[in-house]
C-alpha cells in the first residue's frame, strides 16, 4: 500500500533556529512530490514540486530536496510568519493526477 509519512508531527522553533521537516514515502513509482503550506482554517497553498532524486527547489527561507525514499523541507532562519502546517503529497505515474497526502507537520516559530 502506498504510504506517505511526515515527521515530526509538530515542531517548535525559536526565530532564526534552522531545522528540517521530513517526508518519507513508500510508493510503487513516483511521478512527483509536492509540498504545500496550510494556515489554520484555510486551504493548502502550493510551495514546490520535485520530480527526480537530487532535485532541489528554493523559495525565500525554504528549500525542498528529494531522494529516492524521502524529501526534506529545510527552513533557514525561520520567522514567526513561517508558522503553519506543512503538507507533503506524492503523485503516482499511472492513472489520473491524484495525490496521496501525509498528515503534515505543524510548525510554530516563536519570536
Amino acid at each position, binding site marked *: 500500500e502506498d504510504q*506517505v509519512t511526515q515527521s515530526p508531527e509538530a515542531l517548535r522553533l525559536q526565530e532564526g533556529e534552522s531545522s528540517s521537516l521530513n517526508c518519507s514515502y513508500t510508493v510503487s513509482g513516483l*511521478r*512527483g512530490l*509536492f509540498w*504545500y503550506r496550510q494556515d489554520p*482554517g*484555510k*486551504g*493548502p*497553498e*502550493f510551495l514546490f*514540486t520535485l520530480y527526480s532524486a537530487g532535485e532541489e527547489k528554493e523559495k525565500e527561507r525554504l528549500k525542498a530536496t528529494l531522494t529516492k525514499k524521502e524529501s526534506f523541507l529545510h527552513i533557514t532562519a525561520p520567522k514567526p510568519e513561517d508558522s503553519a502546517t506543512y*503538507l507533503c*503529497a506524492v*503523485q503516482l505515474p499511472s492513472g*489520473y*493526477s*491524484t*495525490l*496521496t*497526502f*501525509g*498528515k*503534515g507537520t505543524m510548525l510554530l516559530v516563536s519570536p
Partner: protein
Amino acid sequence: SQTIHQWPATLVQPVGSPLSLECTVEGTSNPNLYWYRQAAGRGLQLLFYSVGIGQISSEVPQNLSASRPQDRQFILSSKKLLLSDSGFYLCAWNRAQETQYFGPGTRLLVL
C-alpha cells in the same frame, strides 16, 4: 489567472439533514476537479475526482456523492448527514498531471 471558490465557508447541520457544497473554478476550461476531506489529526483524504462533465470517480465508499453539472462546477452532496461527516472540505483543480490548487474550504459541523 485562475481562481477557485467554495461556499458556504462554514456550515452547521443536524444529523440526518441533507448537504450541498459547491465549488467553482474561474479562468480555465476542462479542469480536473477534486473533493477532499480533512478531519482533525488526519491527512487530506481524497473523496471524489472528475476529469469532465458528468464523469465522477469515487475513492472512498460513504454516504456522500458528487456531481459535475457544468465544466467548472463541482458539487458535494449527501441525503442524510452523519456525525462522522464533520470536517473541513476542500475542493481542488488542476490541468492534466499538473499541480493541484486548492480552494478556501468549507468547515462542516454535524450536530
